[in-house]
């Protein structure tokens, strides 16, 4: 019974986390290349997404990790290849979230438009990572 509740909590947190992560990635990708080109609307959107990141997306990531590790222990999944691969992808997405979160803070507090070029493509690996995780968890091919 507790396993199902943990699973529900984990899935809910994953939805909140990946939604917030995509919003952060899109906001950073849409950051104009020059400070003069930054419209007031974009600045306001960055402020809102940065606050959302602090209050919802980052706590959701902590719940994803906590509930996910508890599920893996309860279900005795540690040692399965699919879980090892999934953990690697989640670690990479978490690191990407850390970078995006820091950049959002900087963008919200300054006029700097400096965004590493590779981050302009960040939404793509997020979608790819989440898709790979869904396949690994549902199909458990390994």
């Amino acid at each position, binding site marked *: 019974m507790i396993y199902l509740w943990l699973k529900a909590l984990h899935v809910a947190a994953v939805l909140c986390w990946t939604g917030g992560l995509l919003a952060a990635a899109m906001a950073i990708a849409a950051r104009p290349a020059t400070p003069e080109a930054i419209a007031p609307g974009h600045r306001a959107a960055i402020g809102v997404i940065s606050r959302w990141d*602090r209050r919802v997306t980052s706590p959701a990531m902590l719940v994803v990790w906590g509930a996910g*590790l508890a599920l893996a222990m309860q279900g005795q999944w540690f040692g399965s290849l699919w879980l090892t691969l999934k953990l690697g992808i989640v670690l990479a997405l*978490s*690191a990407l979230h850390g*970078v995006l979160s820091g950049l959002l*803070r900087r963008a919200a507090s300054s006029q700097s438009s400096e965004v590493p070029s590779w981050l302009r493509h960040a939404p793509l690996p997020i979608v790819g990572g989440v898709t790979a995780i869904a396949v690994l968890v549902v199909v458990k091919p390994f």
Partner: protein
Amino acid sequence: MMSPEQRTEELAQLQRMRAISLIEASTLLLLVLVAVPLKHLAGLAIATRIMGPIHGLAFLTYVWMLIQLVSAGGWSRSEITRLVLGAFVPFGGFVNAQVLARRQARLATP
């Protein structure tokens, strides 16, 4: 120029970073100085089975917050190196907490 709200947020971020730095350092000491000797000298393997994951989570949280802090900018290469190395060395987290406290004091001074 930082607005008062941004300064408050920056200070809160440094405060959180100091707290996780102290937690990471304390759990590393408990693991190395208490749990590991208990396992090898008293045969209590449960000590490392409990402290290992606790320190692991504290370490991951510290690394994640460090990535966020560094990505926000304003840190020199030597400061970043010190903050990274401190996570791997016993007592290093306490030194990092001092570095963060100094930064906090500088930022709090108008």
